[in-house]
């Protein structure tokens, strides 16, 4: 088993040996920030490219093919274009909030991104209420969206923002309940600890029925959190032109665009951490040679493999389902998912108390 703590602590020791302690901490912070941002952008580019290709495959098309080999450079072209596109300022908009909104959205998703455990020891923020922090950080993205809709002085944006407010706040409840279910199972809120516990068996197997139910609810609610089809009402193309970001152009729009994709990555990442064991390999009891081979695959590959599998599943949803209507969204949440989630939490608690877990 690889452990990234060896590398990180080596860097830590090296920095401390060449500079005073305070400077070393500051340098580390800067290093980490740069790494996180680079990783964030890199994953966003991979995801956008993946979305194009996956969507093309579902739709009997080819997707980008001409920019670079197999269209690999397509997303870079998009990024260059977006970076130098004009940013329009709108008359009669609340200009401070209007400009702040995209940064809030991106900030929230970067913060959440930094909670993800990519491998053993490869995690930026890890403390004893990790799950709690993750919930808190992810939930202020909605603020950015509300502000975007409110400040841009456009009626479509306004409706989009209101829809997204209603949707994201209510679906956060289901996400919370699912996470709580898993916290009950693991008995800790520290993310690294949660993953460690899954070395001898992923929670989706350990927690059997209640874990599977929580997993399904989490995927649905997570999809709603990212505002992707079938829950893309806030930006419903055929209804509200572009929803809350109708008035945004250039890189401001780019931030919304990237944040949407990265939220998808985060949702899938959290799902693989909580339910599919994060970076832990797949072990089957009794097959020792199989388990030994699995050990050779690095943890980061496991994590990304699981995450991208889930992303693919969510993309499958996106390109298959039609959009829900605005009154179906709260109905699904409050009449079905919340009650099921609550009962599920109860069942999980009983299972844990009676020790009916594997």
């Amino acid at each position, binding site marked *: 088993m690889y452990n990234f703590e060896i590398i990180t602590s080596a860097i830590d020791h090296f920095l401390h040996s060449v500079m005073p302690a305070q400077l070393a901490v500051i340098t580390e912070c800067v290093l980490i920030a740069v790494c996180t941002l680079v990783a964030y952008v890199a994953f966003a580019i991979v995801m956008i490219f993946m979305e*194009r290709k996956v969507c*093309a495959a579902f*739709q*009997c*098309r*080819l*997707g*980008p*093919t*001409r*920019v670079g080999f197999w*269209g690999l*450079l*397509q997303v*870079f*072209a*998009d*990024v*260059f*274009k*977006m*970076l*130098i*596109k*004009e*940013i*329009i300022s709108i008359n009669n908009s609340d200009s401070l909030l209007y400009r702040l909104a995209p940064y809030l959205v991106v900030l929230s998703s970067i913060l959440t991104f930094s909670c993800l455990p990519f491998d053993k020891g490869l995690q930026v923020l890890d403390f004893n209420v990790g799950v709690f922090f993750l919930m808190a950080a992810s939930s202020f993205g909605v603020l950015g969206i509300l502000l975007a809709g409110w400040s841009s002085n456009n009626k479509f944006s306004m409706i989009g923002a209101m829809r997204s407010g209603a949707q994201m706040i209510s679906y956060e409840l289901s996400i919370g309940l699912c996470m709580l279910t898993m916290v009950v199972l693991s008995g800790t809120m520290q993310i690294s600890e949660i993953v460690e516990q899954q070395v001898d068996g992923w929670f989706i197997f350990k927690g059997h029925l209640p874990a599977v139910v929580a997993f399904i609810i989490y995927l649905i609610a997570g999809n709603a959190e990212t505002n992707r089809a079938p829950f893309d009402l806030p930006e419903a*193309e055929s209804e509200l*032109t*572009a929803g809350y*970001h*109708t*008035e*945004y*152009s*250039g890189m401001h*729009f780019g931030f919304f665009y990237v944040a949407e994709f990265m939220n998808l990555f985060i949702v899938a990442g959290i799902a693989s951490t909580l339910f599919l064991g994060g970076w832990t390999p797949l072990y089957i009891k009794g097959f020792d040679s199989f388990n030994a081979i699995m050990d050779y695959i690095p943890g980061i590959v496991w994590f990304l493999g699981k995450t991208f599998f889930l992303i693919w599943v969510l993309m499958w949803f996106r390109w298959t389902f039609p959009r829900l209507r605005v009154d179906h969204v709260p109905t699904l949440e409050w009449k079905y998912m919340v009650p099921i989630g609550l009962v599920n939490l109860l069942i999980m608690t009983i299972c844990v108390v009676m020790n009916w877990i594997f």
Partner: protein
Amino acid sequence: MKKPNIKSIPYEEFKDNETLEALIKEINSERTNVVVGALDDLINWGRSNSMWSLTFATSCCGIEFMSLGAARYDFARFGFEVTRNSPRQADLIMVAGTITHKMAPVLKRLYDQMADPKYVVAVGGCAISGGPFKSSYHVLNGVDKIIPVDVYIPGCPPRPEAILYGMMQLQRKVKIEKFFGGKNHRAKKGEMNNDPIIVTNAPIIDNEKLSKE
């Protein structure tokens, strides 16, 4: 002279190279820095390979535009993948179909709402000159009377292949642009101070006129 290159199609096979060469000459009349030139190339590469068009269609040509996005013709291959519904996020407006007197101010406004750099492609006879409806009392004879057009694609409606060819011509045009130096972005006299369009949804009751009647 540097010639714009489109993947796997030789330069000579394109029509109307003379216009393009004249444009290159005009744009390159001032000398440029090597670094700036390289940056320009990068920017043009990005812009020309990522043309997001506005979903704008008024009549028949719009259907051909839709088939262009669908399985057989698939313009996503070229990087024109994402059609944006909001003009703020679009790079390109394809005027697909007839523009009537009632639609003209709307089209102008859509064009004004787009963020720079923005390009216009006139698709089909109606958008170019009024087409079969040239003699009508309610049809604008050519969109170039109200907005500047970059590429004209003739046809009634043009085949999707023709639209793709037109898009490649536009790519070639974008590839010779200069972001730095400002030669091709210099606004003409009077271009910048258009009168604002007054728009209102409030009911307007012209009491004076009514009382007269």
